[in-house]
Structure formats: structure tokens, C-alpha cells
């Protein structure tokens, strides 16, 4: 077997991952940072890191969980880098990273309304609640795996999820 074969296999796998999980990774990031340009930027970074770490990927868990863990770590790192005392709750990505482009022309009125609604919903949540709910929605991680990703006890992760869902009742009642 030549050295090119495993590389070709890795390339194929990463391409497959992007096709299958790119939107989920981007959605997770968009939900966390609430900025399309930042989400796109970090999505690129996620796949770049996944490519770099491909040798360490031992088929543990699922690819989506693997990618979302990288995404989560990158967001945390980026928030800390922007401001050491930065809280994801009050993160103000807008202040930390001014937008480098205008919204795409394809963003129609309905989509814009949905975005505003989503942003409003996200405002109701704490960063931990947001992370738990988004990881649960976009990944097929168990709550135990989510707790591990957040580096907190299972009971805490479950509590974040329940409180987050209760907070989201507001958008349904409105």
C-alpha cells in the first residue's frame, strides 16, 4: 500500500464529513456566536483542525460529535482570546469582531425574521444553556457526552437543558 492511499482516504472522509455535517457545524456555531461571518470563519477552522487531527481520530464517537467538539473548543478559545474575562453570555461578538461583510442578498425577509427570532431566543439563554441545547440538537451526543464536552457533571448539563427549555417558553407564548 502506498502512502498516497491513506491520504486519499482521509481526503475522501473529510469531504464526506463536510457534506454530511458542514451545515450542522455551521448552525451550531451560528447559534453560539450569532454572527454569520464569524460562524463561517470558525467553520473553516473546524475542518482545518479536523484535517490536522485526522491521525488522532480513532473512530471514537461519531464524526459529527468529533467536529462539534472542535467547534465548541474553538468558540471558547476565540472568546477568551478576544477578551480574557469575556463571558459567552455577554459576549458581544459585534464589539469584539466587527462584521467584515454585509448580509448576503439571498437573505430574504422571511429568513431575516427567522434570524431575528432565533437571536431573540438565544438572548433568553445563558451560554451554558445555549451550548447544551445546540449540542443536543445538532449532534447525536448523549447527555453524558455533552457533559463531558462542557467539562461539567451530568446533573449540571441536564439542569442547563431543562432551564433553557423553560426559558424558551417565552418565545412560544409571544
Amino acid at each position, binding site marked *: 500500500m502506498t502512502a498516497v492511499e491513506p491520504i486519499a482516504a482521509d481526503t475522501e472522509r473529510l469531504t464526506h464529513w463536510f457534506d454530511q455535517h458542514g451545515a450542522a457545524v455551521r*448552525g451550531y456555531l451560528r447559534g453560539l456566536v450569532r454572527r454569520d461571518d464569524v460562524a463561517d470563519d470558525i*467553520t*473553516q477552522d473546524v475542518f482545518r483542525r479536523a484535517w490536522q487531527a485526522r491521525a488522532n481520530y480513532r473512530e471514537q464517537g461519531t464524526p459529527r460529535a468529533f467536529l462539534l467538539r472542535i467547534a465548541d473548543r474553538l468558540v471558547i478559545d476565540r472568546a477568551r482570546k478576544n477578551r480574557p474575562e469575556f463571558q459567552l453570555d455577554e459576549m458581544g461578538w459585534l464589539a469584539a469582531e466587527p462584521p467584515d461583510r454585509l448580509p448576503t442578498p439571498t437573505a430574504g425577509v422571511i429568513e431575516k425574521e427567522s434570524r431575528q427570532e432565533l437571536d431573540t431566543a438565544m438572548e433568553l439563554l445563558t451560554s451554558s444553556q445555549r451550548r447544551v441545547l445546540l449540542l443536543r440538537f445538532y449532534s447525536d451526543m448523549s447527555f453524558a457526552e455533552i457533559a463531558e464536552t462542557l467539562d461539567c457533571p451530568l446533573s449540571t448539563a441536564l439542569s442547563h437543558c431543562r432551564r433553557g427549555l423553560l426559558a424558551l417558553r417565552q418565545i412560544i407564548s409571544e
Partner: protein
Amino acid sequence: MMNESTEELLATLEQVTGVDAPEDASEEVAMLRESWLAFGQLLDATDEEPPQPVVQPRSVRRAGLPVRFIAALAASLLIAFGAWTFLNRGSNSNNPVVAPTELRVPVPATEDVAEVEKPSESMEIVDEFAWEDSFDENLAATSQAIRSAQAGWSGSNRRYSVLLDQFEQFDEELSDGSL
């Protein structure tokens, strides 16, 4: 070990966030499920395909290596050839390159600026490419020899010129018919 409340909450939330709708759901599960579905609808409505990542696989980069290697090799050979040609010309050429000279005014030790502005008395020729070794002496000797040879050539050339002048005069007289 999970305690009872954690276990209960886990079961509830797995029902709430599960793919399939829970059967015989409690009031709490139904309420939380409603929030969960609304949240999911918002996320689905705003989902977008991300731009294609710019990842250059290592295989591509490896493919570029021979081209870079050949380019570097070609550049090295070119430089080596240039250096060899230059050195060879410097040692074997019959037309030595005359090093450019530059007139420099030595700065006097005194602070009298007026002295500096009178360069005629203290000008000297400084050859900045000159160096002191036997090769330099050889070069100077060769240069002198060439100069004397050229002078010799000019002398003989002058004799030939006189002869040519006479021929021209002869030609003119012949054409005038005065001869």
C-alpha cells in the same frame, strides 16, 4: 453513580429531545417538548450551507514538491554557472575589467570647513575595488602590458595611416589627371 433525581431528569429530557414524539407524555414533558420543537424550527429555518473550506490536502502539496525542487536546482545551477563564468573571465580574459574609480575627499582632522571645500590640493584616487595581493599585482602588470601593446599597435597603425594617406593622394591625382 447517578442519583434518583438525575436519573429521572435524564429520562424526561431524553423523551423531550428525542426524535420520536413521546407516548403518554407527562404535562412537563409535553411543555418542554413544545419549546424544543419551536427551538428546532428556528434553527432549521436559519440553517445555511457553509462555504467550502479551503483545505489543501497534503497529497497536493507533495505533488508540488518536485516542481519546487527542480526550480531550486535550476536556480542553483544558474548561479553556479554565472559565478564560474565571472571567475573564469576575471582570470583568463585579455580585456581586464577596469575597476571604477571614485574621487574621494579625505576629511581633514581639523573642523575647518573651508579646507574641505578646496579639494584640488588633497584629492587622491581611491579604488574601492582594489585589494592587496599578488593577483592584484598580476592584474596591474597585465593591464600595463596591454596598454603598452596598444601603444605599439597605435604606432604601427600610424605608419599604416601615412601609407594609406599616400595611396589616397595618389588615387586623387590619378582621377584628376594631374599625374
